[in-house]
């Protein structure tokens, strides 16, 4: 299931999406949580120490290449996650789309 959690800054969406991710993971499912905010805060609500994402590479714009069949990942999801993700409590995998200082690049 692919779920988007949207909302204004301050609405509480990140606390809700992080808590949902943890609880769904506890029910035995594999959960991938993607922080799509230009001010990324999902790590905190997942229980991943925010300073541990400082060195984490954000998803590069050239992740996709255009092929005849449409856009394809240059690397497999496993490779992307190996270099770009963090695992947090309950096994949730976190991908971060932007670092605050690179907000314009996302």
């Amino acid at each position, binding site marked *: 299931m692919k779920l988007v*959690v*949207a909302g204004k800054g301050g609405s509480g969406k990140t*606390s809700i*999406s992080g808590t949902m991710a943890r*609880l769904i993971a506890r029910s035995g499912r594999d959960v991938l949580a993607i922080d799509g905010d230009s001010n990324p805060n999902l790590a905190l609500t997942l229980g991943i120490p925010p300073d541990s994402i400082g060195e984490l590479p954000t998803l590069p714009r050239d992740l996709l290449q255009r092929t005849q069949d449409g856009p394809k990942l240059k690397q497999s999801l496993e490779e992307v996650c190996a270099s770009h993700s963090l695992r947090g409590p309950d096994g949730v995998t976190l991908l971060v789309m932007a670092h605050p200082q690179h907000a314009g690049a996302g």
Partner: protein
Amino acid sequence: MRSVIEVAEDVCILDTEASPEHLARGTAEYADAMLIVVEPYYKSLETGRRMAVLGTDLGIPRVGLVANKMRDERDLSAVREFARSNHLEIAGVIPFDDEMPGAERAGLAPLDHAPDTAAVAAIGELAARMVGDGRA
């Protein structure tokens, strides 16, 4: 992002600001469901309504509001009335809970800071409904 989302594991949750630019970028349209978190006052509800229209236009099959930080019957009536008159579904109601900002101040996940608090319980029920079982 589309391919990442398509091959993702069991459940993929994308946390996004959902400004029109963000949603138009194409990451959201492959979603099965969209939850829009709103607070019980007009400006937030109206913004949520606009996001819901965007989500529906993108073809996301399930779009619903999550009414957050709800304090009392008056808040509940206001949100219900807004949803009803705008033909929106309320996917969940999360009570106002001091432990949520408390978790943030403590630098902890809400689930670790206050696992038994009311907001966390309500989020758990919402999660279970979204994945379609009673396990979450």
